[in-house]
């Protein structure tokens, strides 16, 4: 017996609204043995009315003070963080089958995400991004001779990737803070949190009820997709190159297009961290960085470079990492994988074990009943992971040489977690930045960038905002 989850949260089309609720036809996809996803199939007429209603809501939203938006979103975050709130349990129970995560990992991700949606964190975000967040509400005199104000789009259309649950909600919140109505098409692996978030936000703030719509459809297949690309003032797209490319070509040139294509991250462990005191701790934080999101995040390391010449050599550290991966598997078990993902692990792991068996210097540390795998390579290089907790370790004689090995993936490189670089860190950061990295951090912080991070190198609101200067005039 399957539970059916409606991957859809639409405006109420209330009696005050000029548009009547559209009659929708629904499709169903079985996403697991226990859960099916139901989504509406949009015809042109219904799609047009939805977008019209959202634009109308966007115009009203522009009049809402930003501090109210922060407060309301924060209340929803507090509910997700409250282990006694039914919405928390509903979210976790549905994330497990839809995102292919264990219950423990789903809970960890929900808490980690919702922490950054609280009023406190959003206030801090606005404070860091704006000299005075009141510029979002009206003209502020910020410097001599001019006042400025910032306006967001009337309507943003968000297309989620679905690899990590919660990312789409963060994207919606950013748009709401700049007072944009939101239409989100989540990825299949991230349908639950946006729908529950939108429902809860409508409960906390009926004023926002008609400003946010979430509805799933298989990418490229809906009349709503084409119409939304034509109608929205800004498009925010997460996904693979093909998906992004397709959306970009269908978006009018006058529409702002903000793209987050797939990225990958790596780790570096230097000699200074390879002392007998530090090495086990670094292995534990590295194991957590690799395993968080079952390695499906753009911040998840695919590869870790380990410097030779420390008290703990790369082989010993690989064993420590393997042991930490095993511990973490017990604490935050891996999820049930799709056939494709599982197959990819079997192929990559089995091939590595044959290279190990061939007498090369390759060594493989692996789980017997789950997917985590540590592959210690014998030559410098880069091998993208098949994900789901498979990490390759490359010994390197000198951390500073790693940037060269990363040049070939520069277009995809994002986070570099560095431990034990000592006073070489500034020089190393410069080299990594030349190689294309946009974030250098610790393993501990790698999975959870703060809300104000320069995601893929851009300011949080830069793509969404239009700044208006009011210069002194007579």
């Amino acid at each position: 017996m399957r539970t059916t989850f409606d991957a859809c949260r639409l405006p109420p089309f209330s009696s005050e609204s000029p548009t009547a609720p559209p009659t929708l036809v629904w499709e169903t996809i079985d996403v697991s043995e226990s859960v099916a996803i139901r989504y509406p199939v949009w015809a042109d007429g219904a799609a047009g009315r939805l977008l019209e209603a959202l634009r109308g809501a966007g115009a009203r939203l522009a009049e809402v003070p930003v501090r109210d938006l922060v407060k309301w979103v924060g209340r929803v975050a507090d509910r997700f963080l409250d282990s006694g709130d039914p919405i928390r349990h509903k979210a976790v129970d549905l994330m497990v089958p839809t995102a292919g995560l264990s219950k423990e990992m789903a809970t960890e991700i929900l808490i980690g995400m919702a922490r950054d949606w609280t009023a406190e964190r959003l206030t801090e975000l606005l404070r860091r991004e704006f000299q005075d967040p009141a510029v979002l509400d009206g003209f502020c005199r910020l410097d001599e001779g001019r006042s400025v104000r910032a306006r967001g789009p009337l309507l943003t259309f968000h297309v989620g990737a679905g690899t990590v649950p919660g990312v789409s909600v963060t994207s919606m919140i950013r748009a709401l803070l700049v007072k944009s109505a939101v239409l989100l098409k989540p990825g299949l692996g991230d349908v639950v949190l946006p729908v529950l978030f939108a429902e809860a936000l409508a409960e906390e703030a009926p004023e926002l009820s008609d400003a946010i719509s979430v509805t799933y459809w298989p990418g490229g297949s809906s009349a709503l997709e084409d119409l939304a690309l034509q109608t929205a003032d800004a498009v925010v797209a997460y996904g693979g190159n093909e998906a992004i490319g397709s959306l970009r070509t269908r978006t009018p040139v006058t529409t702002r297009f903000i793209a987050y294509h797939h990225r990958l991250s790596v780790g570096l462990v230097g000699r200074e961290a390879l002392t007998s005191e530090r090495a086990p701790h670094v292995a534990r934080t590295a194991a957590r960085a690799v395993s968080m999101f079952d390695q499906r995040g753009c911040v998840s390391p695919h590869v870790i470079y380990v410097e030779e010449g420390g008290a703990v050599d790369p082989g010993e550290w690989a064993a420590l990492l393997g042991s930490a991966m095993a511990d973490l598997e017990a604490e935050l078990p891996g999820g049930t994988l799709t056939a494709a993902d599982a197959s990819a692990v079997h192929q990559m792991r089995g091939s590595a074990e044959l290279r190990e068996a061939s007498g090369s210097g390759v060594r493989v540390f692996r789980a017997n009943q789950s997917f985590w795998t540590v592959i210690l390579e014998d030559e410098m290089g880069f091998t993208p992971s098949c994900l789901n907790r498979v990490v390759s370790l490359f010994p390197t004689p000198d951390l500073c040489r790693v940037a060269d090995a990363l040049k070939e993936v520069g277009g995809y490189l994002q986070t570099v977690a560095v431990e034990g670089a000592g006073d070489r860190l500034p020089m190393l950061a410069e080299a990594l930045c030349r190689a294309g990295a946009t974030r250098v951090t610790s393993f501990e912080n790698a999975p959870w960038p703060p809300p104000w991070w320069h995601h893929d190198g851009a300011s949080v609101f830069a793509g969404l905002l239009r700044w208006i200067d009011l210069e002194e005039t007579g």
Partner: protein
Amino acid sequence: MSDAFASLARALGTAFKESPGDPWPDDVFDRWARRVFAHQVETNAVYAAYVRKRGVTPSTVAHWSEIPWVPASAFKAVPLVSGDSSRVQRVFLTSGTTDAARRGEHHVLDLDLYRDSLIANMRHHLYAGGSGGPDGRGRADGEGPILPILALAPSPTRSPESSLSFMLGTALDVLSGGEGGFFVTEDGVIDTVGLSEALVEATAHGTPILLAGTAFAFVHWLEWLQGRSGGFALPPGSLIMETGGFKGRSRVLERPEFYAALSEAHGVPVEGIVNEYGMTELLSQFYDGPVYDGRGAATPEMTLEARRHVPPPWVRTRVLDPNTLSALSNGEPGLLCHYDLANAGSVMAVLTEDLGVAFDDGFRVLGRAQGAEPRGCSLAMDDLLSGVPS
């Protein structure tokens, strides 16, 4: 060591040739499989170390299903030779990897064993007359028609690293009495004129033929034909064998549409169109047709979904749960894992990236586990087939 392999290979080849096509009883397969496994552990140090890490030895294996598999991608990682590697007769290369430098290699110690496997299996499915041919047109010795092979693939001399070309070349020599030819030129372009003439000639002489090639080459061929008026009406008994999928390298056709187009263009009923499921990593193949009944009449009620790929008697195929790797019951989709005795000189047990479902009478391939890189016989050729002259 090599003598041991030579005698094993001879014994296997004889068993293949003497096998009428019915599945071997499990105990018969099991005895062979454990003999091959023992040979592989003894002579293949890499595989032996891999097996040892799993705590398995020939003496601990109580049943062939416990023999450790290698992933298909392992053929890209290390040479897998069970025997004297200085005696490798041919290295076949996989195609279709995104990284051409890392193509899979199947080092073959004994091409005769490969020949014995492919010929016995192909004869049973495609040259059997009675159950295989639609019109009773057979040879005096009771076997099926000779069926010249017209191949939409490069010849084995032009493409010695292609296992498909080797297979078709061997079949042309042994089963087709040397009749037929290869219609892909060395630069990868289809010899459309030559193939047209050969098809016209076969039709004029009333000689049924086997038209065989990669799926995407057929798509290119069909596209060329579309620009011409009329198709062919091949003599009854003609068969079409397609293999390898489209690999994202030609227009993708759904199978019913593809078969309808092939049937229409060549005058071969859909029942006479066969998919060969094979891979460079395995020296045995699987066919899902033709689907004629015993008297040679078509069985139109057999849908394409109802077709089954049938392992030859010396192959067992298991369907494994992708997450737990335990064997699944019939009807449940999972990863296909083949145990192929014709691989005695490399590694017998190979876990593929293909999803399939097992049934009592064979298995159905559901396609590649999505997300895996495209591969198969078709791809390398398609790089060359950028333009078919028209």
